[in-house]
């Protein structure tokens, strides 16, 4: 095993395997799905949620995915909370993470305000509609759609290519009108990198779809934002990742209000999740240079496939 893993990544792998076990047999470990929660004192649930969110935060950063995308399918599988509250907490997790990461990314010039505002305006409208539809549909339908989406995300993660510095021959007309272009200092090259984008109208349409799904499932949407910025619009990878975080902070805000007004955000569930995930991502960021990220990424994709499969089964009432 040491051929593939350093000690720390082995620990992460063990955690992930433990998580995998939980997904298969949550009833045995946490008695999830038992309707009343009498067997455990309330504070144990909250502590478990905090610790679990912390671990998810560590793994999410190391695997290069947003916490929200792991949080909703896994927590809805393991804990006895209704899916409405898990999605509400998932949105808050994604929102709080994006808000705390947003400031330094903007300051360094990696996140681009103009690119983000152009895409977020239309995405935030569709995320409101996504949230409304998600809260209006019966739970088993949402579970089923969530499961299919999670499996789809895992496949995207497996297959998606990345382009560090995409070549753009000519920016499109709309991006020129909107002055979407930029320059940032690339540490690895020790020089400034100019960038511009193309296919802006296609990107706008895709952000409508992404916003809708983010609002409906409370997932956060870094998994979709980054490939659209990078592969469709042609922004450099670092700009794509940073701007994606910033777009999340706007789109998730729009959806979060719908969940708040519908009473789908319980502080007892949302706050430990947010705090645990934020602390976990800070530790994860420190581990990032010391662990084999590809191994962790494979484990996370496996976890997503399993959690997605379980959500599909729940959707069918199995």
């Amino acid at each position, binding site marked *: 095993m040491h051929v593939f893993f350093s000690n720390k990544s082995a620990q992460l792998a063990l955690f992930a395997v433990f998580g995998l076990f939980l997904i298969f047999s949550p009833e045995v470990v946490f008695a999830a799905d038992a309707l*009343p*929660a*009498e067997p455990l004192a*309330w*504070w144990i*649930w*909250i502590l478990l949620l905090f610790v679990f969110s912390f671990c998810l935060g560590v793994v999410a950063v190391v695997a290069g995915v947003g916490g929200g995308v792991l949080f909703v399918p896994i927590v809805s599988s393991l804990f*006895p909370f*209704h899916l*409405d*509250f898990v999605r*509400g907490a998932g949105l*808050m997790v994604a*929102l*709080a993470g994006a*808000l*705390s990461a*947003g*400031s*330094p990314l*903007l300051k*360094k*010039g990696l*996140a681009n*305000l*103009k690119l983000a*505002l152009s895409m*977020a*305006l239309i995405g*935030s*409208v569709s995320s*409101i509609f996504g949230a*409304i539809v998600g*809260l*209006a549909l*019966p739970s088993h339908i949402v579970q089923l759609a969530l499961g299919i989406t999670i499996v789809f995300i895992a496949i995207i993660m497996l297959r998606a290519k990345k382009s560090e510095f995409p070549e753009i021959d000519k920016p499109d007309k709309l991006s020129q009108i*909107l*002055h979407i272009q930029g320059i*940032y200092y690339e540490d690895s090259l*020790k020089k*400034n990198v*100019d960038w511009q984008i193309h296919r802006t109208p296609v990107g706008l349409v895709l952000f409508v779809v992404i916003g809708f799904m983010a609002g409906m499932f409370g997932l956060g949407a870094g998994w979709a934002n980054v490939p659209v910025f990078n592969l469709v619009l042609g922004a450099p990878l670092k700009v794509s990742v940073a701007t994606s975080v910033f777009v999340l*902070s*706007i789109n998730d*805000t729009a*959806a*979060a209000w*719908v969940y*708040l*007004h*519908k*009473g*789908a955000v319980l*502080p*007892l*569930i*949302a*706050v430990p999740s947010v*705090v645990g995930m*934020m602390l976990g991502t800070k530790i994860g960021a420190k581990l990032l240079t010391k662990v084999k990220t590809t191994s962790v990424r494979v484990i996370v994709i496996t976890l997503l496939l399993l959690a997605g499969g379980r959500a599909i089964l729940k959707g069918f009432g199995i």
Partner: protein
Amino acid sequence: MNNNRVHPDDSQLVYSRVLHWTSTFGIAFVAVAFAVYVFELLPLKVSIQDIVHNWHLGAGELNQTFKLPTGWGWISDILKGDILSFASIVYISGVTIICLAAVIAVFLEEKNMIYAIIAILQILVLVVAASGFVGAGH
């Protein structure tokens, strides 16, 4: 190409600065309000035990069970521990609106009308969502 480190636009720096302070305050607010809630330093609207026994219910059903106010109806109960904790989450959801409002002034000063309009429209979208006028029940 000039290889000195580049500095982002003023609008971006203003957004970054406002975001830093508003989100830092937000995280502290969330932590303190949650401590007030779980240690019951203020009376609660709904007891923790009641929430725990019913968190398997959907949002609509749970609200109906405890006759919880939806929309902005919670404000009158702000001095209850659970509602204060909820208010801290509401604040977090309002941070982006504050940042956008701050950056509109910079866009207007720069006479960058396209982005001033985009930012105003973005605020309008978020304010409509925050107003509680949009939504559908189970």
